[in-house]
């Protein structure tokens, strides 16, 4: 069953076509990998879904509801959870407080009413659960400046999970991690997926992409190149060419 339907999205920045008539869908319960060379339009696509970038054309449909005209925060409240590529923790808050702010979405929904809501313990308790799920509960009371990047990346995911999103959008979650860390992190994503979390993943680490994604969509130059299961897609010559450059495949042949 399709959770997110993206239909004919086009985005232009000045004269540059960042995305051109791209359609894709994200099915309930899958890990969809969105791959392609640098500048292919992957991050732009995620930004269109979250509302940071507005598309010039096309529709974004979450379970039958159009998101196009909603502001960012409203889309998040509808179930779009986005972990950014560059981790941006609130530096004045501990990791647990960072996550608890998201876990208390109920308390912050109505701005005026939030003035009369004081109780934070429940949200903090819940934040520990999410931190444990990504394996960093030991750093709950640390401030972002005192922990390594790997921890911050996990915190970012825990913070998004605390929003209980219907789909999790991840932009290069493995970038900057060594292979051991990357594999461990990918395992966490697999585990989340087994528990029913739908995930849309942008990632350059193709070994991990091949291992955990159930389906792939390849973008190149703002257009959709191909989609299908990882084994088939990653062995197609057009995909290899897009990644490595034209001529390489012919040379091998």
């Amino acid at each position, binding site marked *: 069953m399709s959770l997110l339907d993206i239909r004919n999205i086009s985005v232009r920045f000045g004269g540059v076509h960042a995305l051109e008539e791209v359609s894709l869908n994200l099915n309930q319960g899958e890990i969809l990998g969105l791959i392609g060379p640098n500048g292919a339009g992957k991050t732009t696509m995620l930004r269109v879904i*979250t509302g940071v970038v507005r598309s010039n054309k096309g529709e974004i449909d979450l379970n039958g509801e159009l998101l196009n005209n909603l*502001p*960012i*925060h*409203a889309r*998040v*409240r509808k179930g779009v959870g*986005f972990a*950014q590529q560059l981790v*941006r923790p*609130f*530096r*004045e*808050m501990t990791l647990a407080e960072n996550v608890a*702010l*998201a876990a*208390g*979405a109920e*308390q*912050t929904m109505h*701005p*005026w009413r*939030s*003035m*009369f*809501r*004081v109780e*934070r313990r429940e949200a903090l308790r819940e934040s520990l659960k999410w931190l444990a799920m990504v394996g960093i509960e030991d750093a709950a009371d640390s401030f972002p400046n005192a922990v390594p990047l790997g921890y911050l990346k996990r915190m970012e995911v825990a*913070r998004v999970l605390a*929003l209980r999103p219907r789909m999790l959008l991840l932009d290069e979650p493995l970038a900057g991690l060594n292979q051991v860390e990357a594999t461990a992190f990918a395992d966490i994503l697999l585990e989340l997926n087994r528990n029913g979390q739908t995930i849309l993943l942008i990632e350059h680490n193709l070994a991990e992409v091949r291992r955990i994604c159930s389906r792939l969509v390849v973008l190149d130059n703002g257009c959709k190149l191909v989609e299908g299961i990882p084994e088939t897609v990653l062995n197609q010559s057009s995909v290899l060419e897009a990644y490595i450059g034209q001529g390489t495949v012919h040379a091998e042949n």
Partner: protein
Amino acid sequence: MGYEISLLTFMGISIIGSLSLNLITGFCGQVSLGHVAFVGIGAYTASVLTKADTPFFVALLAGMLLAGTFGVMVGLASLRVRHDFLAITTMGVNFVFLGVVREQEWLGGELGISSIPDPGLGKLGFLALVLGFVVLVALLSLQIRRSWMGYVFDAVSGDEDTARMLGLDVSHYKLIAFALGTALAGLSGGLYAHHVRFIFPDSFAFVESITLLAMVVIGGNGSILGVILASALLSVLPQWFQFIGDYKLLLYGSLLFVVMRFSPGGLAGLAQNLFHKSKKYFALKENQ
């Protein structure tokens, strides 16, 4: 005795003014360099009304409402511009206010409004009223600080793009900060006008906005107690030492610089640092 009462009243009014700016700049991270314009709107509104025989408290409330309304309008601008640009925009608000007020015959033009009616509470009664408002505004600040609203303000002040990604309606929260902060500035203006009973455009000049900002920054951006202490101190210094009045901009400018350079957390940050250092020192001593 009369002098001390007057001084304390003035101190209380300054505290309300700086706590109101603290809601916007300290809590929500939106720098305002023109806050005294809203103090002025409250002062002029309340004075015009009491001179037209409106009851004092109704006039005070009207001043708050009008200041808050204009505050929301400036808040709407804050949704479009950030950081330095917001600072410049709010500074412009101060000059626009002065420019408009100076030209209005019915507001007394350059000469301002004099013989503002006495609220009839007596000097001590008026002081008690002002101190009562100080307590209320401090309690309101405290409530915001410990509530989920304060939590969201922290996030908005830290990184508003990320706050949006957590589903927080950043625009709405910012507008609330502006509405509350400027309405309370209007309150301090109404009280000020009925304390000195004579106002003119220069009472709300740019240097007064800087004075309010200095109180907030020197006290410790966001710290309620720190801001109260700093405004108590900075509001009476020029009264005690007359010469400070002439060099106010220089003195407050240098103080702002020194604080930002050496203790960005202001008095509150300094106290916290000392507390942690002494704790470490004593812990070390115990271990030896």
